[in-house]
């Protein structure tokens, strides 16, 4: 699983939630993170692998899932996705993905779902929590081994006390968005 975006968007926290939920479910967890110079507003990417693996890095063409907090960063990391992979991206642009990308994704059978995670978080007065809104949106589709309830429990467990309530709320709002997206 690839988690990406820009420095400061909370990619490491989103990764922690998924990793902890996976561990609590009995998976072995291996991940790779970006620290240091690249965190100063640059592109940030985090790899997360579950199961019996040795290396922390995902090979290009083999990721099953991508969660991106930025539209351009989703494009930038396209090469990681396997055929029939799935993309969840935070964007309010109605024309995601760009036509040339859409053609590529359709050809490969890659599913893409966009949600205005930033706007959802902002609407709840927590503009810096778009990561949890996107995670909530993702959780509505029952993709991968960690489901809505487990992720929500993990968020409540690992959020610092003063953010626990709002984080949970933003996550739920994201999930609602995903549920209505499915119906639409």
């Amino acid at each position, binding site marked *: 699983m690839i988690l990406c975006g820009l420095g400061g968007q909370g990619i490491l926290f989103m990764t*922690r939630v998924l990793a902890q939920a996976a561990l609590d479910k009995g998976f072995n967890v291996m991940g790779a*993170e970006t*620290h240091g110079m690249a965190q100063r507003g640059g592109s940030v990417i985090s790899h997360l692998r579950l199961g019996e693996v040795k290396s922390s890095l995902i090979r290009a*063409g083999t990721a099953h899932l991508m969660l991106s907090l930025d539209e351009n960063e989703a494009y930038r990391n396209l090469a990681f*996705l396997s055929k029939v992979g799935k993309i969840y991206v935070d964007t309010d642009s109605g024309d995601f993905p760009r036509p040339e990308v859409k053609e590529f994704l359709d050809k490969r059978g890659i599913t893409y779902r966009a949600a205005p995670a930033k706007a959802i978080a902002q609407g709840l007065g927590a503009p810096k929590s778009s990561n949890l809104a996107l995670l909530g949106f993702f959780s509505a589709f029952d993709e991968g081994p960690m489901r809505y309830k487990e992720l929500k429990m993990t968020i409540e467990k690992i959020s610092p006390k003063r953010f626990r309530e709002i984080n949970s709320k933003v996550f739920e709002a994201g999930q609602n968005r995903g549920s209505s997206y499915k119906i639409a």
Partner: protein
Amino acid sequence: MARQEILLGNGAIALGLVESGCKVVTSYPGTPSSEILAEVIRFVKSERLDTYIEWSTNEKVALDTAFAASITGKRAACCMKQVGLNVAADSLMSAAYMGTIGGLVIISCDDPGPHSSQTEQDTRFMARIAKVPVLDPSNPQEAREMVSLGMDISEEFRIPIVLRPAIRVCHARQNIKFNLIKKSAQKASFKRDPQRWAATPAFRLILHRELNIKLKEIGKEFESLAQYNFHNLEPGKRYPFGIIAGGVPYSVIRDILTEKKRADIPILKIGTPFPFPESLATEFMMACKRVLVLEETDTVIEYFLRNNNMIFGRLSGHVPSEGELVPQVIYDLLNKTLDELNLEKLGPKLDYEATELVKGLNLPVKRPTLCPGCPHRAAFFAIRKTKPKAIFTSDIGCYTLGINLGAVDTCLDMGAAITIASGFYHSFTQDEVTQPIVATIGDSTFFHSGTAGLLNAVYNGARFILVILDNLTTAMTGMQPTPGLGIRADGSKGKAVSLERIVTGCGVEFIEVVDPYDIKKMVNVIKKASTYVNEPEGGIAVIISRHPCVIAYPDEAIPERKRVMVTDDCVECNFCLERFECPALYHDQELGRADINRELCVNCGLCIQVCPKGAIVEA
């Protein structure tokens, strides 16, 4: 069930340190090593240990301190990034001869990529030069175990041990089971032995011989260290092709071969590149016709194998000699090598359709920038504005990003802002050319290695402006405290060391402290400094540009929040975008003027002082 946590590789290393009874841990922060000490502190607090911990002023100081602990009989460790080991090299080379008493593990973290370093150098070579054993972990769990192994070997053979985790070990995350952590009861004692601890050259020859004997014995031990040096050859079987791998590339190739079900390709894993397990390697080479070597970042294993005819690697051009060996690179090069040998390939060639597509999208390149509200930005703006013709020598830290404001021309190594400025001064003055020079260095970097250069510059009569960018923290590596603050690694109170007094003590006669948030005042101080530098009796002028880091101290950094807006007075000159380069400022095509990105803006109000047309105002 045993307690389990998802730890960073650096956390796993920290756990290894406390588990092995390490009593003293020292470090200087540097990516990718910085989190080790912070994690040690976390475990020391949760397990109520009495481990002594310090952020040292630099890596040499850290190693000397840990070495001293070791020769009092305590287990000790020091942690740094690979280029930090260059700073500590003097200490390392000598410590190898003198030997240790308590276990001493030197952790030096490599950065293939490089992601956050000035070189891709290979710590394993440094260990070889120093003649100390080096352990090369391939994942966090192994790094944790190797810390304990290193302590045991160090103590048994009385020799320092180097652990070389690469960035994909340090910044990997893995679930790690906790063992019982016990407080170590070692007490300090020092037995006089000047022929060892203060050896003169005649005794150094004896120590060198001793060291060589130790290495031979450790080499024998490593041959049978089946946990970290092993292969999966079937007895008596011959193979057309095999792989020898160490460190992170071992993990990558192991995953690829498992996924592709290629049990026909044997692997020899090398966890101890020096002393090199020669017999084990020979056994492997005898069973294989050709061998591919995968290691980061240089050619240590390849050199030890010494058989160029049958080896594919960097020396033969089959493995790239620079950059990180990420999985797709290894997949591709292995595929090509198998093809060259007419052996079955792993699968189809990697397709680069996505890569080509992404190239064609012309995505904006997100270069790292100073944060919105960063005091360094204001300082650089003032420097560039006042001394546009100066050469800007700078240094290592967040402020290297002053390059985006056109206010950084050089960055060599820690402390070089001052030494390069000095060298420039003498080179130009020799030709009777007056070249303005402005050096910039951060507070932590100045404490690390600024004083020797400044003393030298003063003593030898160099003239330039030195701006110490004092943001009261070591920002780039994650906000570690500096000596200037008087707060120690574990948060306890230490003695604050005054930058002003150090600078004065170095013999500098012009020193001004200014808050760069007042850009006009900063400009005036730079002008005054410039006049002083050029006076007949002038010299080096030091400006301490002091303002708290906006990330470490958000409230103190911006005591008065100002919501800014751009008015229609904006003439789209782009001056603010190019010279001030705040990520929260952008040009809005539709509005036909600059505008503020509210998501990024921290309301510092600095840009109000920047716009030449007065078009940025408080709303």
